[in-house]
C-alpha cells in the first residue's frame, strides 16, 4: 500500500511538502495498522477520502430517500399508537441523514452539493427504496428486514477507521434497533390477527425478503471496492459474510412471527459454519440500480420537488440571518 500511495504524490511539490506528505502518510498507515481512528484534520490518501465521502453521502441519501416509502403510510396508519411510532421513526431517519451529511462534510464537501448531486441523479442511495410500500404490512417488513439488514451492515461500521463516521453510526445503530423492533411488532400483531391480516404480513415478507438480502451489495467475487475498504478498516466483513449472518438471524425470528421466508434453500452449513440461501436475482438488482426500479423516478422527483418548493424558505432564512448579522455589526 505504501508504494502505491507514494506514486500518488504529485511531482511539483517542494521538498518540504514532500516531507510533510511522507510524514502524513506514515501517520495514516500507523493509525490503520493500530486499528485506531483517523480524524478530519489528519492526512489521508485521496482515495480514502473519496471512498468515505461516497459511502457516507450514499448512506445519508438512503436515509432521506428512505423516508418516503414510510411517510407514505403516516397519514393512513391504522391506529394512533402506530401512527406515533411511524412518525417518530421517519423523523429519526431525517435525523440520521443530518448526522451523516455532517460527517460527510468533514471530508470537505458541502451538504448543498451532496443534495444537488442526489437530485441530479448523480449520487446513489440504497436501491431498496425504489420498491413501493403498497400495504400497511410493508411498514412491518421494512422495519424488520430492511432495518434489520441495515443494522447488520452498520454495527461493524461503528468501528470504522474514520472517526466522525464511526461516531455517527453509534447513535444511528441505537435508534435502528428500535426501528427493527417496531417492524417486528407490526408483523407479529398482523400475524396474530385475522387471516386477512396474516396474509398481508406474509405477502409483505415475500416482497421484501430478496431485496433486503441484496442490500448487502453484490456477491464478494463481484464487489470491486470491498477489498480496499476492508484494508482501510472502513468495512469489517464482506458482503456475503454479512448476508449470511442476516439470513441466520431472520430464519429464527420468522418462526416467532409465525410466518415463512420465501426461500426453500435456506440451511446452515456445518462445514463452512455459514448460512446459505437460494439464488438472488442480481439482474433485477442491477436494473433497479440503473434506474429501472418501480419507484426510482418517483423518489427523486419527490425529493426534487420538496427541495425546489423549499428554496424560497431557505433563501429567506439566509437573507434574514445576513440582515441580523449586519445589524449586530452596526450596533
Amino acid at each position: 500500500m505504501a508504494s502505491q500511495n507514494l506514486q500518488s504524490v504529485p511531482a511539483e511539490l517542494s521538498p518540504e511538502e514532500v516531507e510533510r506528505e511522507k510524514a502524513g502518510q506514515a501517520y495514516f498507515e500507523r493509525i490503520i495498522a493500530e486499528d485506531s481512528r483517523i480524524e478530519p484534520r489528519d492526512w489521508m490518501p485521496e482515495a480514502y477520502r473519496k471512498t468515505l465521502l461516497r459511502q457516507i453521502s450514499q448512506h445519508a441519501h438512503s436515509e432521506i430517500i428512505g423516508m418516503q416509502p414510510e411517510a407514505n403510510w403516516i397519514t393512513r396508519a391504522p391506529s394512533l399508537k402506530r401512527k406515533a411510532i411511524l412518525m417518530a421513526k421517519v423523523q429519526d431517519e431525517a435525523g440520521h441523514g443530518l448526522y451523516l451529511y455532517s460527517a460527510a462534510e468533514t471530508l470537505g464537501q458541502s451538504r448543498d452539493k451532496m443534495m444537488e448531486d442526489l437530485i441530479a441523479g448523480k449520487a446513489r442511495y440504497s436501491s431498496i427504496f425504489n420498491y413501493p410500500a403498497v400495504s400497511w404490512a410493508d411498514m412491518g417488513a421494512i422495519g424488520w428486514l430492511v432495518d434489520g439488514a441495515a443494522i447488520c451492515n452498520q454495527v461493524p461500521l461503528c468501528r470504522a477507521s474514520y472517526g466522525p463516521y464511526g461516531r455517527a453510526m453509534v447513535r444511528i445503530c441505537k435508534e435502528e434497533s428500535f426501528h427493527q423492533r417496531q417492524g417486528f411488532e407490526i408483523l407479529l400483531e398482523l400475524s396474530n390477527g385475522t387471516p386477512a391480516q396474516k396474509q398481508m404480513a406474509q405477502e409483505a415478507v415475500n416482497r421484501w425478503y430478496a431485496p433486503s438480502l441484496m442490500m448487502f451489495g453484490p456477491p464478494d467475487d463481484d464487489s470491486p471496492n470491498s477489498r480496499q475498504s476492508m484494508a482501510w478498516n472502513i468495512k469489517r466483513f464482506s458482503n456475503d459474510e454479512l448476508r449470511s449472518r442476516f439470513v441466520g438471524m431472520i430464519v429464527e425470528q420468522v418462526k416467532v412471527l409465525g410466518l415463512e421466508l420465501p426461500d426453500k434453500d435456506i440451511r446452515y452449513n456445518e462445514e463452512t459454519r455459514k448460512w446459505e440461501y437460494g439464488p438472488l436475482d442480481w439482474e433485477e438488482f442491477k436494473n433497479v440500480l440503473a434506474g429501472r426500479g418501480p419507484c426510482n423516478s418517483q423518489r427523486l422527483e419527490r425529493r426534487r420537488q420538496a427541495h425546489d418548493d423549499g428554496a424560497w424558505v431557505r433563501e429567506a432564512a439566509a437573507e434574514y440571518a445576513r440582515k441580523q448579522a449586519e445589524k449586530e455589526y452596526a450596533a
Partner: protein
Amino acid sequence: MTTANSGNMEHDTDFAHEGHGDISVGVSGAGASGDGSASATRITPGNALRPEDIALEVRRGTAKPSEDVAEYALRLGDDALILAQRLGHWISRAPELEEDVALGNIALDQLGHARSFLTYAGGAWDKSEDDLAYFRREHEFRSAHLFEQPNGDFAVTIARQLVVSYYQYALYSRLMQSADPTLAAIAAKAVKEVDYHRDHSAQWVLRLAGGTEESRRRMIQGLRLVWPYVEEIFEDDELTTRLAERGVAALPSSLRQEFDNRIAETLAEAGLDVPDVPQSLGGGRAGRHSEHLGYILAEMQVLAREYPGASW
C-alpha cells in the same frame, strides 16, 4: 420471544459484541435502553403522563370523566388530532431536513396530546382512542375549522402554527389549574411542548417576514388565509360556560386577551399587521365542518375501516 435471536447468535458471539447496535434489543424487548418496557412511542422522557397511563386509570375507574368533561376533552383531542394529521404530511416534504425533524416533532407532540385527550374522553363512553379517531364521521368531530385548514405553502403552515401554538399555550397554561386532575395533568405535559411550538412558529414568522420580498409576501398571505378561523377558537358556548363555572375548563373568551397581546408583540416585531379579514362562522364544535375534513378523515380512517375490529 427471546428465542428469536438466541439461535444463530451462538455462532456469532463476536458479532453480537461488535459495536453498539445491539441487534438483540431489536426483538427481545429488553436491554440496552435500560427499560425493558420502554416503547418507541415513549417520546417524552421521564415520568410524563402517557395515553397508556390514562387508559389504565380509565380501566381501573380511577379516572372517569363526566359527559361534559368528555365532550370538552373530545374538542381538545380532535383539534390536536386533525392538526397532527395535517402536519404529518410535511414529513419528507419540508424545505430543510431540520424542518422535517421540527414539524415531525410538533406533529408527534400534537398526536400525543390527542391520544391523551381522546383516551380520557372515551372513558365516558367505553370507547378507545382508536374508536374515536377512526370510527366517527365528519359531523361527530368537534375540531375547530382552523385545524383542518390545508398546509398550503410553508408560510401558511407557519401562520396556522402561530395561531395554534399561541392559543394552545394560553389554554394549557390555564388548564394546568383545572379542577379535573386528568385534564390538568395532560395540560401540564402539553404546555411544555407547546411552548417550543410557539418559539418555532414565532422564529419563522420573523425570518419569513424579514427575509426576502417573496417570503414576506407569502407570510402576509399565509396570515390572511388562516385569520378568518381565529374567532371560532375563542367562542364560548353552554358546555364551556358550565365547565368554566366549575373550574374544569378555561373559558375560551377569557384566553383572547393574552392571545391578542402576544400575537401583537410578535407581529409587531416582524413588522406585520394583524390581518383585517372577515371572521368565518365556524361551527366545528357542533360538528359543522368545511369540505376539508372529509378528505382528511377518508385518508386517516381508510385502513382501520377496511378491517373493522382488527388489532394493529
